[in-house]
């Protein structure tokens, strides 16, 4: 943009928006969201209620919070499948530190977030500095951290399967606050996290480094980027997101449990990929992932409500969505297809270029 200083600033920023690498894909996601709203809304008008949608979002928080930061990891070419384990670990640390060690609930939450950051740093260290594949490290991490969560729960006087409850009201009130009586605080936290992720990824030097490391790690290294530190930091970020999820979910349920994260790994990765993140690295956007996460939640909420689909069958449409999107993109980016389209529609080529 700097080569055209004469242009008015408005137009430049508009061009930056529409010419952005993920603009078309984000547009598609917005269309998908709108389509979901229309289809589900026609099938069952009850769907179109903000309160209901926000309530359903509460159970899908791990997808929303974590996926926007797992996007960072995937842009550097890695993958993070340990975050669900960290959610449970955070939750149980809060519970045990508060109930059995008598810490203030907020200090306990802070302690849990610090532990989670350390867990992320450990995995990130192994990936970045020891050169082990991210998949293996975070697989080991998911075993290790969920195991640690179980061990921490044995320190408590309460049996593990019951969970620790009876938190002070001030802590539980965290998720009872509603802005304008409609928007729960969880959604605000999500928006704040999304804002942070967007600024970090698309507006700061750090974000450019994350992309550069994903496109070409050696080029990044040669241009003076400490690529190892950048890679490690993305794992810390995703662990921090997981720990915030843990705090919010503990407050929301009023119970600390070691298995709170459930098994959202597949859905989180689906949200990232659906949001336009390349699993090979170098491409992705925070907004895209957030849009994808929201549309997945709407799907998980709308299918049972409007078409009476049993909640357990929801893996089928989400799996189908993932497969259709990745195969569709593979076909669209196939050089043969691109050439054919360019021949048939010369204008499209110009627009694409």
């Amino acid at each position: 943009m700097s080569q055209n200083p004469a242009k008015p600033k408005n137009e430049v920023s508009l061009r930056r928006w529409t010419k952005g690498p993920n603009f078309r894909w984000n547009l598609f996601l917005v269309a998908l969201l709108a389509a979901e709203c229309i289809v589900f809304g026609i099938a069952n008008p009850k769907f179109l209620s903000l309160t209901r949608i926000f309530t359903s979002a509460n159970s899908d928080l791990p997808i929303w919070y974590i996926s926007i930061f797992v996007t960072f990891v995937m842009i550097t070419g890695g993958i993070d499948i340990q975050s669900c384990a960290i959610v449970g670990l955070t939750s149980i640390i809060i519970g045990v530190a508060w109930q059995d060690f008598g810490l203030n609930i907020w200090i306990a939450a802070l302690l849990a977030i610090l532990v989670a950051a350390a867990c992320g740093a450990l995995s990130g260290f192994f990936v970045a500095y020891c050169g082990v594949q991210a998949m293996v490290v975070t697989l080991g991490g998911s075993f290790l951290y969920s195991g640690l969560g179980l061990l921490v729960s044995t320190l408590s006087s309460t049996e593990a399967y019951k969970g620790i409850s009876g938190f002070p009201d001030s802590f539980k009130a965290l998720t009872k606050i509603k802005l304008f009586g409609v928007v729960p605080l969880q959604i605000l936290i999500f928006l704040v996290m999304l804002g942070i992720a967007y600024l970090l990824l698309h507006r700061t030097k750090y974000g450019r480094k994350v992309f550069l490391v994903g496109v070409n790690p050696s080029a990044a290294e040669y241009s003076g980027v400490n690529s190892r530190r950048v890679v490690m930091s993305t794992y810390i970020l995703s662990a921090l997101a997981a720990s915030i999820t843990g705090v919010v979910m503990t407050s929301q349920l009023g119970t600390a449990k070691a298995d709170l994260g459930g098994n959202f790994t597949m859905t989180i990765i689906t949200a990232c990929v659906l949001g336009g993140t390349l699993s090979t690295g170098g491409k992705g956007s925070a907004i895209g992932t957030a849009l994808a996460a929201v549309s997945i939640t709407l799907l998980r909420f709308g299918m049972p409500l409007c078409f009476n689909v049993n909640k357990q069958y929801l893996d089928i449409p989400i799996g189908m969505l993932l497969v259709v999107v990745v195969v569709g993109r593979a076909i669209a980016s196939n050089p043969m297809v691109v050439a054919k389209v360019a021949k048939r529609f010369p204008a499209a080529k110009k627009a694409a270029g």
Partner: protein
Amino acid sequence: MSVEKKILKARETTSFLFLVALFLIVGIINPSFLTPSNISACFNTSVVYTLIAVGMAFAIFVGEIDVSVGSNMGLVAAVVGTMIQNGSNWLVAFLVGILIGVIVGLVNGWGVAVMKVPSLIFTLGTNGILRGLMYLQVGVEQVNQLPKAFKDIASMTLIGSFTIYYCCAVVLTIIIHYLLTNTRRGRYFIAVGDNVGGAELVGIPATRTKVLAYVICGVLSAVAGIIFCSRIGIVTSLSGNGYEMKAVAACVLGGISLSGGVGSVIGAGIGAVIMASISYLLVFMGFSSNYDNAITGVILITIVVVDALMQRRAAVRNRHARLAARTLAAVSEKEGEQ
């Protein structure tokens, strides 16, 4: 290279020594562990993991991964279990199960090798679809009215106290290992995983090899599903959940590199035994099963990190050796000119 040296250098030897060390340590802490029946129990419980890990090894050999094996296994177990429960012919049920495995393998292979979708993403998608189909098949109930004759096969022993299933799995693994290392087509898998471009240049059909690897993976998961059904006797809609991660862990423990082209199916089998026996061993060491996941994670991370560091050191040493040789050659050439 002589046979002994080859065996000593093989990566699966380390895993085997690790397994022996594990058994010995547990034996020292609690001598009552070291009885043939306990040790064979460790091997017998690993049969399902062994088959899935060997299948997964194929996907990893060609440089890809298949995280749909757990759901694939569960779906086959559910379908075969329901058919046998309803009194259909066993052979027909088995064939239907294996057919499911072939179809799943073909779909995965098509997506990964032909459409060139990243394998983790694609198989994650098929994993979701298969898991959903399994809910459709089983629902909220469970398959638990299997005929006694079918369940009894699982407790039949063949050699000592090893079950007939484990013996078959071992024989199968050894045959696959022989085919992989000693036949032309078998070596394609490793070649494709090591260097796809190079393999294609020398005329190896890389796409077809990858599809075949996925089909083999699917079939082995299907067989594992049938055995799971007979061994456990109960199939719920959650059966097989998380087995894919245990299979990947077993492969890594067995010395298979996730970047492809390195390792052997024997290693996968040994890794599966380690994975399966950890919870059994913990009981003998006086730990509760709460330690299960934490210790699995520690072992997994330790092994891969140590392996990565050793490989890096070897690479650095090789580079130094090459550099030294080149300088030496250059120097002697210069001297020759003078």
